[in-house]
């Protein structure tokens, strides 16, 4: 039984297509994606409304979840980090979280076979 990990990466929306392609090329096709808003060290974005400026501190980010075997974690992290980084603040974070079990709903397969 392979140990599984969930890799949660929070990236810039405009980098998403690139990251997706890179993951695909690296053989990691499966993923779940959601739109989130986030705040880190990045200063918010100054917007305006009716002539008045204000700062939106939660900026739109894209969150990618990829569940892989423990041994693939490094590869995935590397791929994401390489493609998502622009070098300026706001590039995002990757979190690796332990997954105890993985079940494929269609077949009931578990863990390694379920990915």
């Amino acid at each position, binding site marked *: 039984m392979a140990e599984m990990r969930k890799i949660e990466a929070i990236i810039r929306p405009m980098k998403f297509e690139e990251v997706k392609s890179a993951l695909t090329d690296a053989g990691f096709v499966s993923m779940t994606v959601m739109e989130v*808003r986030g705040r880190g060290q990045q200063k918010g974005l100054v*917007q*305006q*409304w*009716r*002539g*008045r*400026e*204000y700062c939106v501190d939660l900026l739109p980010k894209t969150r990618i979840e990829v569940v892989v075997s423990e041994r693939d974690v490094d590869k995935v992290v590397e791929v994401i980090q390489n493609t998502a980084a622009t070098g300026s603040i706001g590039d995002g974070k990757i979190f690796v979280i332990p997954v105890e079990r993985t079940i494929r709903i269609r077949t009931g397969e578990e863990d390694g076979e379920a990915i």
Partner: protein
Amino acid sequence: MEKNRIYLLTSILVMLALLSLTPPIAAQEESIESLTESVDGLGTALTFVWLLLCGGLVFLMHAGFSLVEAGFTRAKNTANILMKNLMTICLGVLIYWLVGWAIMYGENVGGIFGFSQFCLSGADNSTWNAWFFQMVFAATGATIVSGAMAERTNFKAYLVFTGLLVAIIYPVYGHWVWSGADFALLTGDGSWVVQICGASFHDFAGSGVVHSIGGYAALAGVIILGPRLGKFKNGKPQVIPGHNITFGFLGVLLLWLGWLGFNGGSTLDGSDAFMNLAVANTFLAAAAGAVAAMILTWMKTGKPDPSLTANGVLAGLVAITAPCGSVENWAAIVIGIIAGAIVYAGVMFNEAVLKVDDPVGAIAVHGYCGTWGLLAVGIFSVGMGNGILDGAVYAAGAPGLLYGGVNQFMVQVVGALAAIIWAFVAGLIVFKLIDIVIGLRVSEREELEGLDITEHGIRAYPEYITE
């Protein structure tokens, strides 16, 4: 005898010839009469057609207001705003039929209001035509208020206010200006105001009657109501962005189109060629207002602001509503530019100085620019019969300041002040009463939750995930 006979015969022939001429002449008389009637009838018919269609365009403004008000506020209050706007026109139709018309155009009572023709009693097609065109205007006045008080007003309280505005507040001032009564306070020949000022107040299509009244009643409303939760933090105005700019812009374009009917139709005569001047000036002022507002925001924040630019269109339209049939094209542009500046300054002033919260800028657009439009008549009017107004029958009577006249300006100041005071004071009283009896404002919890859920039990966009 021969001669006599000849003579007689000839005479008779001549007489007969004469007689034979008379019937065609009489027949022609008749056909000319019936033609005249037909032509008069056609003139009336053209006016009917024109005012129905212009009225239709003004009605479209309710769609415009609905969209602007919904688009420039938050999604959690959208259904409520739409309901308020729909009910405004619905109550407007019914109440202006029941009472409003009677107060505005009924038999004059003491120069102050009308009082007859309740329920349009005795109406014929001319009355229905006139009522229809006036009714869409009346309802517009109320809609202005709904925008300023958006996102926190109790629905029932708003309905009651709308009823009272259409029944009393609007038609009383309207009576002073548009009733045509001899003693009508601001325009009647017999009115002391007109006699003192030496000129009759001119408010072509309602910078005062419709927009000032709506705008200053709204001011009274927001003062009593207070700002939305979170609008001011430690006294500093905060930003609460609207949820759908597309709706807002579509609304502005529909309003602009509606103004073609609003100003174009206000000659009240399908054959009055000056409708063209009115429309041309209307479009020039609207465009100028938008460009001015855009440039101002561009200079201030470095970026051209969409919602204030949209307000700039409306500012220009409101301001030109009174003078559009009395001024030259260049003046219309100047009036629009100044209106664009007023709306920008007015919005800032309301928030920063008065500390009132008007989500869509209704007070600045309709109140301040309405006043500006009334004054502009006194400044830029060419004077009826002069220059481009040669042959005009419905324009500001006397020339404005720029053309050497003072009287028109004087009476415009008086009329503008009358609108401010009447709408504001009547608004304060009515809103205060409503607040006591019904409660003007929803609870804090309801406001946070959004009026759509709490007032109507629905969400306007149940499938979209929103922040």
